[in-house]
């Protein structure tokens, strides 16, 4: 086991900067997920840790060792590739043994490790088969088995579930969780699937444009995003953004003028937003934090018109015309009976509001929210 530490890591391919000076601490025994859209630099970061790419600058530490100049096999890591990268001409057992044989591991140790890993992953009966004779799920297990037998300091996984069908993916996700609990090996996992990231990680690093946008526990990052990118990337449907002008409604009270609507700013944010009166500000609210109100006269209700109703089983997603120019989404109770063109009143959960600077995208209320949660 080992912690992994990245400091000011940069990777350039000719004119393209794939990784732009990231620093990240991956604690020992943690399950850290690098998540972000295609081209955000997450896979390149993983490959830099693996030793499959050379860093342009910066430092990579595994344990206490700087490993920048070490070859892949000298880094004590094992990697699971998106396409599994099983050697097609070797049997499952030969695939699992190969890495150990290359490291001159004694035969009895190889036997023991392969048997143990096969048992753990329930692939004992597949040992004599070749990869082409296995299903996608079985290939995935073998790839994991090959990584496990190495007993490495760090597991590196590059979207290992993305080639599986939806049902198998959910099943393997649970198994990966169990496996990590059993082995407690430091794991760095790359995915673009936010659900995978949220369910597997105990630390999540959201990446975009070669930079880490936010690091933290998944629920914390989800509930208090640092910027509009993180806020919009995590969550499905993604967070609603409504842009308006901040105004002082009465001394010490702020409201956001959204055109046809005004929205009262919660008291805890008035201090931090006070110096932005007269400026444009973006209000962010997640669809699940919007409810339909039966009370037509209460304050802070926003009238809207239903445009699309999407029943999704556990929830119903409504697409609503907010003010003729902006649409927002609300995830409501599946029993809610609304249909297209219905006029409804929306209530925003005042504990789940976020305010962003429209120019930089940075959250204006991140620090206040953090303090509030610490106090709570």
């Amino acid at each position: 086991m080992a912690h992994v530490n990245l400091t000011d890591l940069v990777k350039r391919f000719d004119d393209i900067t794939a990784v732009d000076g990231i620093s990240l601490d991956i604690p020992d025994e943690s399950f850290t997920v690098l998540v972000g859209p295609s081209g955000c630099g997450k896979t390149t970061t993983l490959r830099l840790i693996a030793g499959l790419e050379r860093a342009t600058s910066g430092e990579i530490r595994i344990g206490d060792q700087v490993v920048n100049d070490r070859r892949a096999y000298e880094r004590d890591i094992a990697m699971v590739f998106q396409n599994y990268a099983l050697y097609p001409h070797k049997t499952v057992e030969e695939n699992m043994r190969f890495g150990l044989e290359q490291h001159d591991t004694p035969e009895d140790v190889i036997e023991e490790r392969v048997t143990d890993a096969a048992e753990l992953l329930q692939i004992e009966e597949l040992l004599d088969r070749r990869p082409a004779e296995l299903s996608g799920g079985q290939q995935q297990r073998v790839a994991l088995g090959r990584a496990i037998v190495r007993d490495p300091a760090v597991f590196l996984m590059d979207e290992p579930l993305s080639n599986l069908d939806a049902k198998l993916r959910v099943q393997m996700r649970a198994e990966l969780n169990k496996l990590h609990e059993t082995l407690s090996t430091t794991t760095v996992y790359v995915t673009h699937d936010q659900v995978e990231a949220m369910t597997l990680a105990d630390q999540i690093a959201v990446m975009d444009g070669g930079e880490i946008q936010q690091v933290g526990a998944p629920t914390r990052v989800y509930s208090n995003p640092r910027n509009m990118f993180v806020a919009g990337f995590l969550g499905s449907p993604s967070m609603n953004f409504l842009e308006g002008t901040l105004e002082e409604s009465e001394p010490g009270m702020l409201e956001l003028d959204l055109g046809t609507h005004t929205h009262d700013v919660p008291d805890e944010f008035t201090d931090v937003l006070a110096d932005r009166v007269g400026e444009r500000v973006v209000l962010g609210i997640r669809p699940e934090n919007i409810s339909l109100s039966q009370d037509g006269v209460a304050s802070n209700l926003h009238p809207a018109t239903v445009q699309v109703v999407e029943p999704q089983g556990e929830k119903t997603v409504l697409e609503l015309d907010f003010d003729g120019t902006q649409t927002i989404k609300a995830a409501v109770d599946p029993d809610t009976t609304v249909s297209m063109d219905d006029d409804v009143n929306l209530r925003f959960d005042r504990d789940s509001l976020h305010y962003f600077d429209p120019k930089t995208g940075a959250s204006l209320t991140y620090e206040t929210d953090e303090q509030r949660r610490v106090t709570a």
Partner: protein
Amino acid sequence: MSTKRSTLDSVVDALGLDTEDEWPYIVRERLLAYALLAVYVVVIWFPIYYILITSLKPTTEVLQIPVTFVPSHPTISNYIEIFQNRPFGTFTLNSLVVAVTTTVICVTLGTVTGYSFSRYDFFGNKALLLSIVGARMIPPIALIVPFFSIMSNPPLIGGLTGSLYDTRIALILTYTFFNLPFAVWIMKNYFDGVPESLDEQARIDGCSRWEGFVKIILPMAKPGIAATAILAFIFSWNEFVFALVLTSSPQAQTLPIAVSLFVADDFVDWAHLAAGGMIAALPGILFGLFFQRYIVSGLTQGAVKE
């Protein structure tokens, strides 16, 4: 009627049709297809059959009119005589040495070069590949005179070796020139179809680049290597024009030339020519029969994205 019906039934059974309603149309369609294929097979195989029976006929029967399509007195004396009366052993050895050496060189260089082009992104990569493969686009006939001139008086190593004219080396170098671009192209395509993550997994498993290539990638490239080897071998074994121009004596002449020597100004020794022709054709036929699946998979690798 009943006989006709039962014959059709057996055809229907043989073709694996199970419903009575569909057989008349399908039988007609399939019979037509099989008939066309049968004609094609006859056209393709008849020359080989004809040279085979000619090689097994005594000289008197070869010129007999009407022509016999089954030898009345089959004999292998023609085969024995060409080895006794002419240096056919030497010709065969020359062919083997030239073809095998060319094949080994092309496969070895083609494999490592193809792998390099597939995996390494170096300056001028594409231009270099284009120039190598493009060299093969020149019609070989246009290069006969330059090759004759170069082999007669090699500009670089002439001082050391003297003329390469009428040597096996001249043929090996020439055939390598023509086959290596093919080998590089086939192998590059083949390696393009092998996911790079396998190389990387090998590196993580403890292999150097070279070890990963030898232990993991090369065993997977067997069909590509087989295709390259077969094509290089058959080309070198069959080649006639350059062998005719670059050699003049049995010390370097190959089987195609040896066979042509049975044609004199006023007489063609058909029986011995046929026997020599059969020996010359045998490797090609055998390779075609047993290894054609490798040729197909080797040439089509990378043609479709899986």
